[in-house]
């Protein structure tokens, strides 16, 4: 079967779980900021007003655009932590 030329194959949209940090001066209207992010294509899952974090899902291409939103300190892929127990043998 002939391979599709790369230029014709549509790129898969990669969904990313992200964590957005909010600047001090926008903490007071963090929910408005969350709406701004949503308007740019982020599916907002969690808004944490005390620590200033908004988490959710976004397409990979959209991530850089979110960084330009006023009040956004950082946009990072959300980490997954594991328990810090070590194997039984030293």
């Amino acid at each position, binding site marked *: 079967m002939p391979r599709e030329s790369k230029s014709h194959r549509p790129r898969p949209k990669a969904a990313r*779980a992200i*964590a957005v*940090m909010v600047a001090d001066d926008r903490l007071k209207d963090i929910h408005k900021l969350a709406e701004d992010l949503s308007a740019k294509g982020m599916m907002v*899952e*969690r808004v*944490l*007003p*005390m*620590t*200033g*974090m908004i*988490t959710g899902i976004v397409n990979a291409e959209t991530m850089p655009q979110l960084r330009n939103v006023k009040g956004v*300190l*950082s946009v*990072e892929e*959300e*980490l*997954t*932590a*594991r*328990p*810090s*127990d*070590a*194997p*039984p043998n*030293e």
Partner: protein
Amino acid sequence: MAAKRKSAKSPRRRSARTESMRSELMTAPPQATTGDVAHTTGRYIVIYKDPQTDVSAARATLESAAGIRRIASSGDYADGAIASEDLAGGEAVHFDKLGISVISGEAASQVEAAAADVDSSILAIEPEYIAYPSAPPYGNPALEYVRGYRDAVNQLYEQLAGRGDALGADADVSATLEDTPEFTWGLQATGARTSRFSGQGIRVAVLDTGMDLDHPDFRGRPIVSQFFAGAPVQDVYGHGTHCIGTACGPQRPSSGVRRYGVAYGAQIYAGKVFNNNTPRPGAPTGSVVAGIEWALTNGCAIASLSLGAPINQKVQQYEVPIQRALNAGLLVICAAGNNASRPANPGFVEPPANADAAMAVAAIDNRLQIALFSARSSTVTGVGGIVNIAAPGVGVFSSVPVARGSHGFMNGTSMATPHVSGIAALIAQATGLRGNALWSRLLQTAKPLTAQSADVGAGLAFAPQ
């Protein structure tokens, strides 16, 4: 030694402090000989009870005590700076602003005799010591070289000597602790065994895999709990129950086992920030930070996070929330990580422990040596990536879910972290300190270890007695 102010009390009465200083002076002052650590100039410093003592008052005192007549005053010299040559030959020099005099060795015993009188204006007399600079004379680049050389030699020694006697080679056998029927070795090592504090009144949040809410040792103990990652609080993995046990387990476990908990009087907040995925559960940052907000909302003083992601980078998703939490008075205590495989690989402190505002905890074993898996301070994540403190993390006995046998042993910086969290609760109760001040107190009261600070920070966390 500061001179005392004139007191309104009868001049015949001496304070206890003066008495103790005088009795110290009864011992012969050290002579300057080679081989002595302390070196003296042969001169003596006279300190007056009145810090305002001026040169004429000093002259009156020293003349009547030892016949000293020629006294130069620092006020006679430009800028108050006196050349040491002027101190030779039986003269004295008086420093007006400090209210002290420097006299020659020949006059010292007479002045000391006069000072013994209760009415003497002299508070104390002591030998003038020579201080040496603490830095090498050849400047910083050479210091860096020597430091690098030292580190290289240490590493080589570790590799050659193996596990047996390397770090802490001077740690003797008596430093090995064992569990007893009454206490875990960890409670002994950290002084929690003998502490009169329980953490009463302090709220401790343990953000982890949850809690076995049916555990017999916790029956009747109020536990506030909440889940954040979609899985119910009940602990199936077993880790959270073990950590909560170490941090806050009961003083006398009803199951009859040895005591394994530090802050048995603290209020437990069990936050389930992990999902129930197998084989290993995961905690998305959003869930962990939601747990931190919950701890803040509920007035917790401490959040214990025995979790991490094995990347050697700072991440804003932990830096910023944890800084804001600390600013709000919540001390966030995190496991340094188990990504080391010593001696070949020292590892690095992981996020969230590598956040500037997070306290990073290393694990030691029952010989007070660094655990082979315990991560060393990172060389790339700045201040945050430094190990701050250490605690027991090998062969730690604590509670586990009933389905897994109710009690068991675990290893990890996961186990060290709740030791520190429990001790933090004891200190918080004892002192009322919170946030940054509580952080400082924990480090100030840690016991020094022979292990290097890159591995154990300030040393072994220790409970207030």
